[in-house]
């Protein structure tokens, strides 16, 4: 039961592994730029506002293109 619960807890945040990886990579990279002072605040905000919807769009596009019949959950 515990392993099932742990798996389902991870599943709360990770469904499409590539989407999760894209979100974490984008946030990690932008955070590094922000914390190192290489990018001003407005640019950090702009990058987040572009990268995250783009990651969503890429993930949806990929799934729709493949026409995968994923299980409903």
């Amino acid at each position, binding site marked *: 039961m515990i392993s099932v619960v742990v798996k389902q807890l991870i599943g709360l945040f990770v*469904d499409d592994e590539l989407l999760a990886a894209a*979100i974490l990579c984008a946030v990690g990279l932008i*955070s590094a730029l922000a*914390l190192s002072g290489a990018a001003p*605040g407005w640019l950090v905000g702009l990058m*987040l506002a572009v990268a995250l*919807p783009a990651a*969503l769009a890429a993930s949806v596009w990929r799934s729709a293109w493949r026409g995968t019949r*994923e299980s409903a959950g």
Partner: protein
Amino acid sequence: MPSLTTIISVAGASFAASFVEAVEALTIVLAVGLARGWRPALTGAAAALAALALIVAALGPLLGAVPIRALQFVVGVLLLLFGLRWLRKAILRAIGVIALHDEDAAFAREMRELAEAERRRANEFDWIAGAAAFKAVLLEGIEVVFIVIAVGAARGLLGLASVGALAACVAVAAIGAAIHRPLARVPENGLKFAVGVMLSAFGLFWTGESLGVAWPGGDAAILAFIALFLAVALGLVALLKPRAAALA
């Protein structure tokens, strides 16, 4: 002092997301109750609520000890993972790539599994039924707790988020107790679509704020992000639905 925009969006996001989770938990508890009796169903649900209370009691005081920037960052990233995952599935359901979540089907499946288990273990105490109710309420309840923390903690509005979640759970429990059927008519994908948009917007806002971004308009920027994610999601549905229909 939080703005009206923040108060409405925190309470609304917490209520809507918790409503969806409560509907899913209710479906399983009803299936257990009708297939195997109300004693294991209610015992399992009550045990899960007690476990949730322990989790909240243990984790609640820790939140106050975490620096606000770090809390905003962690919550923001988790909200992005959680919200964009919901939004992705809602979009894929809307365009027909994955099947709609059907509470009637989930209810029938749970009833079937419990009936099969009953045939195999006719003489044992009904641990299976109790465990099914426990697991459903615990897992959906953890999601509700996460949502409350995620939308409330970064602005010090845990109380407000909790009220929104509690109202949703009470409403679902009251409806379920009254009709004794799964809430199949709830437009679940529409709710998930809306909640995915709201949680993603909160995630973007708080991640940026934790990195020192001074969003134009302050908290009102959340509304702009809601509009942004909504536009992207609806655009994807409009673009991909005809293609998915052609492939089907």
